[in-house]
C-alpha cells in the first residue's frame, strides 16, 4: 500500500481511499471542496505559503445554527460598534495551524465586500473583525470562514485580557528600550575599559561618560520604573523585595556615576545601571507573557460553550441565553451539541463525549436520571434533560472560575533568591550607612585620595561605592540564568515548565502523589489471555471488532492484528448493543461479541468467571473465542518508583478504582501507600492534609477528577494527553506522557537547584571579599569594573555547566 499526499491538507493516506480527480488526490470531500473554492477564488498561492507543512482536513460543520448569530440577543452581548459606526466582533477561529491558515482567513474575509478589517492573531487564534452592518450579516461572515474549513466561535473579550495585552506591550517596549540602550552602553564600555590600559585623555573619558549617561538615563527611569513601583508597593506592605534591591542598587550607582560625570574623579558605572535593569526586566517580561497566554487559553476554553440553549417551558420551545436558565427547566439538545448546564437526563439513553472534562476519548453511555455535566457533548441523539444547577454553578463554569482563581493567586513559593535578597538589602544598606558615619564623624581617611573633594563628599562617595560594589547583578542573575538553562534542558526531554520556580520546589519534594489510570497505567486495555477455539472464524471476529470504536474492541483488534494473519469479510446488519457488545450477520449466520451480560442476553452457557474485563465472541450461539483484558502499567513506572525511593521521597497512589485493582498495581510497583475509591474532593483534601504536615507535595495526574488536587499541590504535573483543564492548572506538563521524562524532571531539577545554590554562593562570596575594600575606600576603579563583570560572568559560566552530563 503506497501512501499518497492529499493535495489540500498534505496528510498522507493509502492510495486506495483517496478521491481521484485528474492528477489530484484528496483524502475527503471536504478537502476537495476547499481546494476548488480556493482555485476558483484565485487563492491557490495558499499552497505555496503552506509549503511542506500539513494542516488538519477541513472541519465538517452543519450550518443550521447560523441564525443565532443574527439575533438581537446575540448582538447585545457580543457585537460592539466602533467610533465610525462599523460593527466589531471578537472571534476565536478553530483550525488554524500555520501562518498560511492565518493568511487565507484574512484574505478571504478581506475579499468579502462589506468587511472593513479582519485581523487574526496567529498565536492566540483570536480574531477581530470590523464590518459594515448595512452590507453584511455576521452569519454570512461565519459562513465564509466555515466554507474554507475553519470554524469561528465568539468569546467575550474580558477586561483581564485587555489588561494583560496592554501589560505585555508595555513591558515589551520597556524591555526593548533597555536592551537597545544597554547594547550601546556596552559598546561605549569597550572604549572605556580599553582606555584603562592604553590611556585616555580626560576629555575623551568625559565624552564616553556623557554618552553612557544619555543612554542609561532612559533605562533607569523609563524601563526601570517597574522596579521603583514594585519597591514602593513592597515597602507599603513592609517587605524588602528583589525590586527594592534592584531599584536602590541601580539608582545609587546612577547617583554615584553622576558625581563622576560632573567633576568628581573616578569611573562612572552607568553600564552597570543599564545592565542590571535589562537583565532583570527580561525575566519579568517572560512572566508577563506567561500570564497573557494563560488568559488566552482560558478564553479558548470558554468560547467552546454554546451561547444559547433551547428550553421547553409550558410545552413551548424557546431559545434563551445560558444565564437565564433556571433549575427545573427542561433543556433540549441535538446530536453534536454541548450540554450547557448540569442536569438529569430525561430521555431514555444517549452517549456523551466527556473528553473535555475527563480526557477519556470514548463516549460515555447514559440512561434516564443519570447526571449530565456541562461542557460534554451529546454524540448521537436528540435528548431532553432537567436542569439541576444553574449556569454559574455548573461543572464547566466552576472549573473556569477555579482556573481564574489559580491564575490570580499569589505564587505558592518564595524563591531562594528572594529570601536572600531581603536580608542582603538590609545588610548592604546598613553597612553603607555605617561606612558613611564612620568616615564622616570619626574623620577616618584611608586609601581614598581624590583631589578637590571635601570631607563630606569623600565620605559620601565611599559610602555609595559600597552599594555600587555590592551591585546585585550577580545575585539577580544567579537564579534566572541557572533556571533558564535548566528549563531548556528539561524542554529537550519533553517537559514543559510553566515557571522556573518549580525547579526549586521539585528539588525539595518529600512526597509524590500519583493518580492511577492514565498516569501510572496506560488507561488502555490490553489482552492478557486469549482462548480461540476455532481459528477459521478469526476473520469474522476481526471484522466485527473493526466495526466498533469501543476500547475493548480496539484492544482485541490490535491483539489479532499482531498475532494472526487477518483480513476483512463482509458483515451485514451490524448493530451496537449498548453496554454489552456488537451483533451482526455473516452470510446467514448470527455473530456477536461482547461481555458476559451479552452472553446471558442470548442465553449462552459459559463456564468461566469474570475476574477482569472480558470479551467473548460467538457464531451461531457457539463460543469461538474469549479474551481477558487488563489495564497495562506504563513503561518505566517501576524504575521511577525505585528512583524516588532511593531519593527518600514518599510515594502515594490515589485512585477512584476499587481495592483489588488498586492494590495489585501498587504492589507491582512497590508504591508506599495506596488509597482507593477516592473522589475528587477527597483527593484534594488528602493533598491539603499532607501540606499541613509541612511536606512539599508533587501531584501527578491527568483527568478532571484530579484538577482540584493538582491545583492544591505545591507542584502539579499533568500528562500531555490530559484533559485540557488539567493541563491548564498544572505547573508542569509531560508532553510525551512518559514516566521516564518524569524521572528526568527530578534529576535535572535537583541538578539545577544545586547550581542555583552555587551561584548564590559565588555572588555572596564576591560581596564578602569586595565590600570590605569598598568600606575602607580602597576600591580601585579598574578592580571594581572588572570584578563586577567577572562575578556576573562566573555565574553565567557556572550555570552553563548544567548542560554537561
Amino acid at each position, binding site marked *: 500500500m503506497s501512501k499518497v499526499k492529499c493535495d489540500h491538507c498534505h496528510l498522507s493516506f493509502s492510495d486506495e481511499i483517496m478521491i481521484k480527480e485528474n492528477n489530484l488526490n484528496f483524502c475527503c470531500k471536504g478537502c476537495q471542496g476547499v481546494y476548488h473554492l480556493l482555485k476558483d477564488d484565485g487563492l491557490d*498561492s495558499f499552497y505555496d*505559503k503552506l509549503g511542506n507543512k500539513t494542516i488538519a482536513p477541513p472541519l465538517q460543520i452543519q450550518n443550521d445554527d447560523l441564525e443565532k448569530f443574527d439575533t438581537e440577543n446575540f448582538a447585545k452581548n457580543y457585537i460592539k460598534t466602533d467610533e*465610525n*459606526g*462599523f460593527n466589531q466582533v471578537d472571534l476565536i477561529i478553530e483550525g488554524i495551524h*500555520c*501562518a498560511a491558515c*492565518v*493568511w487565507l482567513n484574512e*484574505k478571504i474575509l*478581506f475579499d468579502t465586500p462589506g468587511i*472593513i*478589517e479582519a485581523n*487574526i*492573531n*496567529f*498565536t*492566540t487564534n483570536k480574531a477581530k473583525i470590523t464590518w*459594515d452592518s448595512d452590507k453584511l450579516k455576521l452569519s454570512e461572515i461565519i459562513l465564509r470562514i466555515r466554507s474554507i474549513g475553519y470554524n469561528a466561535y465568539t468569546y467575550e473579550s474580558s477586561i483581564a485580557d485587555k489588561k494583560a*495585552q496592554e501589560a*505585555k*506591550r508595555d513591558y*515589551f*517596549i520597556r524591555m*526593548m*528600550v533597555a536592551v*537597545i540602550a544597554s547594547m*550601546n552602553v556596552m559598546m561605549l564600555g569597550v572604549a572605556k575599559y580599553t582606555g584603562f590600559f592604553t590611556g585616555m*585623555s580626560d*576629555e*575623551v573619558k568625559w*565624552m564616553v561618560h*556623557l*554618552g553612557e549617561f*544619555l*543612554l542609561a538615563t532612559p533605562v533607569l527611569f523609563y524601563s526601570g520604573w517597574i522596579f521603583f513601583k514594585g519597591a514602593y508597593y513592597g515597602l507599603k506592605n513592609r517587605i524588602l523585595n528583589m525590586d527594592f534591591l534592584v531599584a536602590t542598587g541601580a539608582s545609587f550607582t546612577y547617583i554615584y556615576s553622576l558625581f563622576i560625570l560632573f567633576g568628581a574623579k573616578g569611573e562612572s558605572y552607568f553600564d552597570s545601571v543599564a545592565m542590571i535593569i535589562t537583565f532583570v526586566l527580561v525575566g519579568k517580561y517572560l512572566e508577563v507573557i506567561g500570564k497573557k497566554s494563560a488568559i488566552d487559553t482560558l478564553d479558548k476554553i470558554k468560547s467552546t460553550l454554546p451561547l444559547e440553549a433551547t428550553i421547553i417551558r409550558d410545552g413551548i420551545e424557546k431559545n434563551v441565553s445560558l444565564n437565564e436558565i433556571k433549575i427545573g427547566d427542561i433543556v433540549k439538545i441535538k446530536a453534536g451539541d454541548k450540554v450547557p448546564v448540569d442536569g438529569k437526563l430525561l430521555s431514555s439513553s444517549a452517549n456523551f463525549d466527556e473528553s473535555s472534562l475527563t480526557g477519556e476519548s470514548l463516549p460515555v453511555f447514559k440512561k434516564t436520571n443519570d447526571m449530565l455535566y456541562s461542557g460534554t457533548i451529546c454524540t448521537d441523539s436528540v435528548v431532553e434533560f432537567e436542569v439541576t444547577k444553574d449556569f454559574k454553578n455548573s461543572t464547566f463554569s466552576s472549573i473556569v472560575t477555579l482556573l481564574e482563581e489559580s491564575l490570580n493567586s499569589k505564587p505558592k513559593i518564595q524563591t531562594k533568591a528572594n529570601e536572600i535578597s531581603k536580608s542582603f538589602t538590609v545588610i548592604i544598606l546598613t553597612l553603607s550607612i555605617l561606612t558613611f558615619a564612620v568616615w564622616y564623624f570619626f574623620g577616618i581617611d584611608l586609601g581614598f585620595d581624590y583631589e578637590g573633594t571635601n570631607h563630606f563628599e569623600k565620605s559620601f562617595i565611599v559610602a555609595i561605592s559600597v552599594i555600587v560594589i555590592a551591585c546585585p547583578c550577580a545575585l539577580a542573575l544567579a537564579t534566572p540564568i541557572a533556571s533558564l538553562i535548566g528549563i531548556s534542558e528539561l524542554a529537550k526531554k519533553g517537559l514543559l515548565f510553566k515557571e522556573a520556580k518549580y525547579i526549586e520546589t521539585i528539588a525539595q519534594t518529600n512526597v509524590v502523589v500519583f493518580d492511577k489510570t492514565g498516569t501510572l497505567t496506560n488507561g488502555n486495555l490490553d489482552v492478557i489471555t486469549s482462548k480461540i477455539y476455532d481459528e477459521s472464524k478469526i476473520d469474522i471476529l476481526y471484522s466485527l471488532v473493526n466495526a466498533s470504536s469501543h476500547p475493548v474492541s480496539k484492544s482485541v483488534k490490535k491483539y489479532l492484528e499482531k498475532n494472526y494473519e487477518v483480513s476483512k469479510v463482509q458483515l451485514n446488519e451490524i448493530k451496537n448493543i449498548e453496554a454489552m457488545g456488537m451483533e451482526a450477520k455473516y452470510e446467514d449466520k448470527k455473530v456477536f461479541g461482547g461481555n458476559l451480560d451479552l452472553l446471558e442476553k442470548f442465553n449462552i452457557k459459559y463456564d468461566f468467571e469474570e475476574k477482569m474485563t472480558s470479551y467473548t465472541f460467538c457464531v451461531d450461539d457457539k463460543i469461538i473465542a474469549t479474551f481477558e483484558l487488563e489495564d497495562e502499567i506504563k513503561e518505566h513506572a517501576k524504575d521511577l518508583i525505585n528512583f524516588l525511593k532511593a531519593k527518600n521521597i514518599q510515594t502515594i497512589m490515589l485512585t477512584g478504582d476499587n481495592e483489588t485493582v488498586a492494590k495489585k498495581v501498587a504492589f507491582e510497583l512497590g508504591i508506599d501507600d495506596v488509597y482507593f475509591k477516592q473522589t475528587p474532593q477527597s483527593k484534594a483534601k488528602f493533598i491539603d492534609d499532607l501540606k499541613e504536615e509541612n511536606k512539599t507535595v508533587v501531584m501527578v495526574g491527568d483527568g478532571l477528577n484530579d484538577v482540584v488536587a493538582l491545583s492544591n499541590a505545591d507542584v502539579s504535573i499533568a500528562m500531555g494527553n490530559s484533559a485540557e483543564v488539567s493541563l491548564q492548572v498544572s505547573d508542569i506538563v509531560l508532553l510525551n506522557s512518559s514516566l521516564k521524562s518524569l524521572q528526568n524532571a527530578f534529576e535535572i531539577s535537583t541538578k539545577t537547584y544545586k547550581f542555583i545554590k552555587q551561584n548564590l554562593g559565588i555572588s555572596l562570596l564576591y560581596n564578602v571579599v569586595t565590600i570590605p575594600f569598598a568600606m575602607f575606600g580602597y576600591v580601585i576603579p579598574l578592580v571594581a569594573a572588572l570584578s563586577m563583570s567577572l562575578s556576573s560572568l562566573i555565574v553565567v559560566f557556572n550555570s552553563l555547566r548544567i548542560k554537561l552530563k
Partner: protein
Amino acid sequence: MINDTLFMMLIIGLIISGILLALFIWGAKTGQFDDSNKMVDGLLFDSVDDLNDAINKEKKVKEAKEAKEKEKSLKENEQKKS
C-alpha cells in the same frame, strides 16, 4: 580636533539610534509586534501580490471610513433641512 570629530560621531550615533528606537516604539504601540509568530512567518509572505494586498487593505479601511462619514453628513444635512 580629533576630540571634536569623536564628539560629533557620538552624538550622531545616539541620534540615529534614537530615531530607530522611536520607529520601533511606534511599531510596538500600533500592535505590529503583538503576535510574535505571525510576525516571524509573515516576513516570508513578501510577493508582489502580498504587498499589494497590504496596501489595498489600508485603502479599503480609509475608503470605508470616508464613505461612512459622507453618509453621516448627508443624513445630518437632511435632518437639518427637515
